[in-house]
C-alpha cells in the first residue's frame, strides 16, 4: 500500500479498525498519493483522506460497475496487460445469456431450487460446445452445495486449457465485449440513482483511479466487512477485481485489493481452516454425490490437462492424508479417502444454528468467539444454545455465550427460565497470546511466530494443550472398539513430542504442517517447499501452501531481522505463504517480454543472461520459464504455463474478468438490492440476488422492501461497524478497564435531519426496532451521517457499533447488542450473513423491559404485515425475467438489449 499512487478505501474504516496498518496509507499520501474513502459514514479515515464519498450501504456494485463502464468507454484500460494477462480475449459459449437479456437473471436459473446451473456460462470449445469443468456440473445441480468455495484459492477447474481466443477482442462473444455490454447501463446517472453519489464525485473518483494506473502508476483498493457481509458480498469483491485487472493493478507493487481482516489469525484459520467446506490449503471437503470416490474428488479439484499448480492437487491431498493418518493411509485404501466425512450441502454456522434449534446438535464448542453477541440474529443463537445437551466455552472471561442460561435477554423476557434449561455448560479458561508459542497469519499471508513469555496461570490452558488432551482421551475411549466407525479416530496420528509439563511442543505441529519426506533409510526429513510434494505416499504435509515454513530445519516464521532486512520486500521477517512470496502473481509486474512495465514500478523481471526471473521478491512463477516460452498445452499443470500466464493458480493462467465457473450467483457481478431495502432496484426487474441463501422462519422475519405494503413501518437503513477501542463481540475488550473507559456505552449515530424527524436528542436514548429485535442505544447526533437522495427520496442511514452485549460476568461495560437486529440471509458463495445493511425504525427513549419488549416487536411486525414470505420471493417478476430472450437478429429488439424495459 505504501507504494500506491492512489488508494481507495471502500467497505471499511481503516484508520479506526486498522490504525497501525493505516500508517502505510499515510506514508503513501505523504509521497503524494491520493486517498479516497467511499463509505456511508464520515470517519477518521475520511478525515485524513483527500476526499470522502458517502454511499448508500449495499450499492457498491453499481459504483464499481460504473467505473468499469467508464474505463472501457473512455478507452482507459491497460491494453497490453489486459490482452496478455486476462481472459478478455477468451470466447464464451453462445449458450450464455446475460442479465441484459433476462431482466436481471443469467441463463440457467432454476426457480424451484433457487440455484443456477452454470454450464451455459462456460468458455466456447473448438467444436462449438462449452469447455466444461471436470464432469461435476451434473453433481452441482443435484446437490446444490456451496460449490463456490470449492474453488479454493485458485480458479475453478477446466477440462483443459485449450480455450478459443480472439486477441483483437472484436468477436461479440469475447469476454471483453460481453463485459462492455453488461456494464453499459452502469452510468454516472445510475450511480446517482442507486448509490446517492453525485456525478461530480463519481468523476473525481474515476479520474483519480485512471490517472493513477498504467505502466508508471498503480492504484490499490482496501476493503473490510463492508464488502463481505452482504447477500452478494463475493460479487462486490469480484467487481473490484475486474476493475483492477482492466487497469493492470494486480501483481504489481502498489496495486491489488487488500482484505483488511479483523482477527489475529483469521487468515490462518482460513488457510488451515476451522471451516466446514475446506481442508488445509483450500482443498475442498468431499461432498456426497460429487466426490464419492478419490478419482472423482481429485478430478473435481482440477483436471491434469488444465494449466497451473492446482493440477498437482493429488500431491497436496495425498500428502495431507499421510499427515492426518500416517501409515493407515496407503495406495491400496485410496490413502484413507473413505475416512473423510462427506458434506451434503452447506453446513455453515447458521445452518448449524438451525440444526441446534431442531435438536439435532447435542454438543457445541465455542472457542474464542462469542456468538451470543457476535452472530446475526442473537436471539436465534441464544435459543439454539438452550437446546444443546452440552456446551464447552473456552475463553479468557465469562462472556455472554457462557452465561446466557442465567442472564440473557431471553431470561429477562421470560422466554427462557434457568431452571428449565437442560444444557450442561463447561467453561474452560484459555491462555492468552503471551502464554503459549505459535504462529498467527496476518492479513498479507505472513506467518509470525510468537515466543512464549510465561506459563498459563491457574487452570488456564492453550487450545493446543486442551485439544491435544481431549483427542488423546477420545482415542483412549475408542482404542478397543472393533466398530469400523471408530477406525479414523484410531488411525489419526496424535503422537506429538511432549514438553516437561506433558503438553505438545508447538514447533512439532508446525513441522507436521510444513511436511516431511521419508528417505530411503526410513528417516523423516523436513521439506523445503510444496514443489517437493509427491503423490506416491513418500511425503506428508499438513498444509501444502505452508510447506517451506520450516525449510532447512529453520523456523522461518520466527525470523526477526530488524525491519525485515535491506531488501524492499523486507522478507527477512516472518514467512509468507506460498514459498515466502510477498506479492502474489508478481510475474504480472513485468510486461509480456519480461521487462519491467516501468522503472518506477520495477519488481520482478526476466534476466536473459541468467535465464531466470529475478527481482525484489521470490518470483511467483516457474523461475526458469522464459517470457516467450510456449509449451505444449497438453502437458498440463505448471509445465503447460506459457511465459505470459502470470495467474499460475488459474486453470488457463489468466486473470478472470469473467468467471465461467466457480461462483454460484453469476459469472459477472450484478447490482441487486439487499434482502431488506426501501429502494426499488433501478437497474433490473430482479430486486434481490436470486441465488441468496434464505432462512424463511418465524424467528427470522424481514422488513418489507420497496413496493411492498408495510415498507413505511421500517423506514430507515442501519449498518454496523467497529470502534478502535473495542474488538468484535467484546470478549477481549469489554473486560479491560482502559478500553471500557475509552468507549463505555452502546450508541447510535444519526444525522441532524433524522434526529429532528424522530425527536432524538444528543446523549439521550433511542430505541431501534427491526423485525428481529428491539434494542436501545445512546444517541449521537452528527454530521458524519449524510442523508442521501436516492431515486428522488431521502434515505436516512443509522450507524451502530456492535461490540456490546447483555449478560456475561465481570464485564466492565455492557449494553444492547446490535447483532440482535440483524436477520440471517446469506451470500450463496460464502455463506456470510448480510449484516452491513438492514431496515429499522428509530424512536426516542429507552426500550421497554422484559416481556413488554417482545410485545412492542410483535406490534411492529403486525403493522408491517410481515410474514415468512416477506422478501423471501426469489424471482421478483417471473413474467419479465424467465421468458426466453428474443433472438439476436430480432428487428424489434434494440441494439442495447433494453427493449423489455
Amino acid at each position, binding site marked *: 500500500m505504501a507504494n500506491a499512487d492512489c488508494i481507495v478505501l471502500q467497505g471499511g474504516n481503516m484508520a479506526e*479498525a*486498522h490504525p497501525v*496498518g493505516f*500508517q502505510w496509507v499515510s506514508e503513501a499520501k505523504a509521497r503524494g498519493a491520493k486517498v479516497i474513502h467511499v463509505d456511508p459514514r464520515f470517519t477518521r479515515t475520511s478525515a485524513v483522506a483527500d476526499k470522502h464519498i458517502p454511499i448508500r450501504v449495499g450499492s457498491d456494485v453499481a459504483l464499481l460497475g460504473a467505473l468499469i463502464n467508464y474505463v472501457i468507454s473512455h478507452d482507459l484500460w491497460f491494453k497490453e496487460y489486459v490482452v496478455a494477462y486476462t481472459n478478455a480475449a477468451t470466447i464464451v459459449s453462445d449458450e450464455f445469456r446475460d442479465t441484459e437479456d433476462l431482466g436481471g437473471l443469467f441463463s440457467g436459473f432454476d426457480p424451484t431450487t433457487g440455484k443456477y446451473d452454470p454450464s451455459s456460462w462456460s468458455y466456447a470449445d473448438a467444436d462449438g460446445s462449452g469447455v466444461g469443468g471436470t464432469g461435476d456440473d451434473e453433481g452441482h445441480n443435484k446437490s446444490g452445495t456451496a460449490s463456490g468455495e470449492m474453488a479454493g484459492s485458485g480458479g475453478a477447474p477446466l477440462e483443459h486449457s485449450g480455450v478459443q481466443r480472439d486477441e483483437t477482442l472484436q468477436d461479440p462473444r469475447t469476454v471483453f465485449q460481453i463485459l462492455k455490454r453488461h456494464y453499459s447501463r452502469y452510468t454516472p446517472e445510475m450511480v446517482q440513482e442507486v448509490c446517492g453519489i453525485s456525478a461530480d464525485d463519481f468523476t473525481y473518483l474515476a479520474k483519480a483511479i485512471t490517472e493513477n494506473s498504467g505502466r508508471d502508476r498503480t492504484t490499490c483498493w482496501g476493503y473490510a466487512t463492508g464488502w463481505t457481509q452482504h447477500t452478494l458480498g463475493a460479487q462486490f469483491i469480484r467487481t473490484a477485481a475486474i476493475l483492477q485487472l482492466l487497469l493492470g493493478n494486480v501483481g504489481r507493487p502498489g496495486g491489488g485489493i487488500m482484505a483488511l*481482516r479483523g*482477527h489475529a*489469525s483469521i487468515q*490462518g*484459520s482460513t488457510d488451515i*481452516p*476451522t471451516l466446514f467446506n475446506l481442508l*488445509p490449503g483450500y482443498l475442498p471437503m468431499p461432498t456426497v454425490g460429487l466426490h464419492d470416490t478419490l478419482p472423482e474428488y481429485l478430478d473435481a479439484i482440477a483436471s491434469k490437462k488444465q494449466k497451473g499448480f492446482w493440477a498437482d492437487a493429488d500431491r497436496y491431498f495425498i500428502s495431507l492424508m499421510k499427515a*492426518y*493418518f500416517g501409515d493407515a493411509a496407503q495406495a491400496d485404501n485410496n490413502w484413507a479417502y473413505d*475416512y473423510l*466425512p*462427506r458434506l451434503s450441502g452447506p453446513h455453515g454456522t447458521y445452518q*448449524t444454528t438451525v440444526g*441446534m434449534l431442531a435438536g439435532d*446438535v*447435542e*454438543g457445541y464448542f465455542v*472457542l*474464542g*468467539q462469542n*456468538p451470543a453477541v*457476535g452472530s446475526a440474529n442473537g436471539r436465534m443463537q441464544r435459543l439454539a444454545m438452550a437446546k444443546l*445437551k452440552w456446551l464447552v466455552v473456552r475463553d479468557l472471561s*465469562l462472556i455472554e455465550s457462557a452465561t446466557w*442460561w442465567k442472564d440473557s435477554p431471553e431470561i429477562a423476557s421470560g422466554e427462557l427460565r*434457568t431452571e428449565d434449561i437442560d*444444557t450442561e455448560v*463447561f467453561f474452560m479458561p484459555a491462555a*492468552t*497470546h*503471551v502464554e503459549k508459542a*505459535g*504462529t*498467527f497469519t496476518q492479513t498479507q499471508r505472513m506467518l509470525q511466530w*510468537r*515466543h512464549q513469555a510465561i506459563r498459563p*496461570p491457574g*487452570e488456564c490452558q492453550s*487450545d493446543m494443550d486442551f485439544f491435544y*488432551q*481431549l483427542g488423546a*482421551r*477420545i482415542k483412549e475411549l475408542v482404542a478397543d472398539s472393533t466398530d469400523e*466407525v471408530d477406525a*479414523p*479416530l484410531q488411525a489419526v496420528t496424535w503422537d506429538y513430542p511432549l514438553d516437561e509439563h506433558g503438553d505438545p511442543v508447538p514447533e512439532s*505441529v508446525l513441522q507436521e*504442517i510444513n511436511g516431511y519426506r521419508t528417505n530411503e533409510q526410513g528417516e523423516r526429513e523436513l521439506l523445503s517447499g510444496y514443489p517437493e510434494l509427491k503423490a506416491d505416499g513418500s511425503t506428508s504435509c499438513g498444509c501444502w501452501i505452508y510447506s517451506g515454513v520450516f525449510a532447512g530445519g529453520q523456523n522461518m516464521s520466527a525470523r*526477526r531481522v530488524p*525491519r525485515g532486512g535491506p531488501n524492499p520486500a523486507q522478507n527477512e*521477517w516472518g514467512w509468507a505463504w506460498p514459498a515466502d512470496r510477498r506479492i502474489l502473481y508478481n510475474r504480472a509486474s513485468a510486461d509480456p517480454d519480461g521487462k519491467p512495465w516501468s522503472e518506477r514500478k520495477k519488481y520482478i523481471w526476466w534476466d536473459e543472461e541468467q535465464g531466470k526471473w529475478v527481482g525484489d521478491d521470490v518470483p511467483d512463477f516457474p523461475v526458469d520459464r522464459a517470457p516467450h516460452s510456449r509449451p505444449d498445452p497438453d502437458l498440463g499443470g505448471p509445465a503447460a504455463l506459457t511465459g505470459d500466464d502470470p495467474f499460475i493458480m488459474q486453470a488457463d493462467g489468466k486473470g478472470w474478468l469473467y468467471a465461467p465457473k466457480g461462483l454460484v450467483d453469476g459469472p459477472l457481478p450484478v447490482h441487486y438490492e439487499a434482502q431488506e431495502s426501501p429502494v426499488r432496484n433501478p437497474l433490473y426487474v430482479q430486486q434481490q440476488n436470486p441465488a441468496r441463501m434464505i432462512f424463511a422462519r418465524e424467528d427470522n422475519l424481514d422488513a418489507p422492501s420497496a413496493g411492498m405494503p408495510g415498507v413505511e413501518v421500517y423506514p430507515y437503513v442501519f449498518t454496523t461497524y467497529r470502534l*478502535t477501542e473495542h474488538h468484535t463481540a467484546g470478549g477481549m475488550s469489554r473486560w*479491560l478497564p482502559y478500553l471500557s473507559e475509552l468507549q463505555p456505552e452502546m450508541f447510535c449515530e444519526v444525522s441532524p435531519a433524522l434526529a429532528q424527524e424522530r425527536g432524538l436528542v444528543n446523549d439521550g436514548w433511542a430505541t431501534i426496532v427491526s423485525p428481529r429485535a428491539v434494542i436501545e442505544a445512546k444517541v449521537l447526533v452528527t454530521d458524519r451521517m449524510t442523508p442521501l437522495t436516492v431515486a428522488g427520496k431521502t434515505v436516512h442511514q443509522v450507524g451502530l457499533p456492535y461490540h456490546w452485549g447483555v449478560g456475561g460476568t*465481570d464485564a466492565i461495560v455492557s449494553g444492547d447488542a446490535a447483532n440482535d437486529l440483524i436477520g440471517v440471509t446469506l451470500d450463496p458463495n460464502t*455463506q456470510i450473513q448480510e449484516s452491513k445493511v438492514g431496515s429499522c425504525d428509530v424512536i426516542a427513549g429507552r426500550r421497554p423491559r422484559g416481556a413488554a419488549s417482545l410485545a412492542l416487536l410483535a406490534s411492529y411486525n403486525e403493522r408491517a404485515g410481515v410474514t415468512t414470505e416477506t422478501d423471501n420471493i426469489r424471482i421478483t417478476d417471473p413474467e419479465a425475467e424467465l421468458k426466453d430472450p428474443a433472438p439476436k437478429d430480432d428487428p424489434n429488439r434494440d441494439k442495447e438489449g433494453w427493449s423489455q424495459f
Partner: protein
Amino acid sequence: MLEWPVLRQFRSGDYLGRGPAVESARTRNLTSRNETADRVVQSVCPYCAVGCGQRVYVKDEKVIQIEGDTDSPVSRGRLCPKGSASEQLVNAPGRQYEVLYRAPKSKEWQHLDRDTAIEMIAQRFVESRRNGWQERDDKGRLLRRTMGIASLGGATLDNEENYLIKKLFTAAGAIQIENQARI
C-alpha cells in the same frame, strides 16, 4: 543556590524550562518498570490481522508491560489502543482462572478439576458423535459423519491449534466446524 530553577534553566541550556531544568530529584531517580524486567519476549498483537510486533516484559513470571516492537517492518513499534492495552488482557481483573461447570437446570456454577472436566467432555464427545452418526444417505452413498457435534471459533487461535482442531474433528467425522472467517 545553584539548584534554583532559573539558574538550572541557564546552566543546563534548557531555556524554556521544559526539560532537565524542571526535573526533581525524585523524577531523576525514577526508572522505567521495563528496565527491571527479567526478560523481554517478542510476540505479536492478538487483536486485528495487521500483525503488529509486540515486546512482552516479564518480571517474576508475571507480564508487567507489553509495548510495540520497533524492529517490526509491519508496525515499526506502534500499537493502537487495543494493542497498547494488551497487558490488561493478560492481567484483566475479570479474567477467569478456574474451570467452571453448570449442571442441567442449575442456577449456579461449580468448580471442576480440569482433568475431570476434560474426561467428561471426551465422554460426551464420543456419545454425541454416536448419537448423531450418519453412515450413508438415503441413496446408500457413504456419508460417514456425525451431525451431533459442532464447533465455532479459530480466528483468534494459532495456526497450530486450528490444525489440531480440524484434524480431530475430521477424524471424528464432525463436519460442522466454523470460525469468524464466515462472519
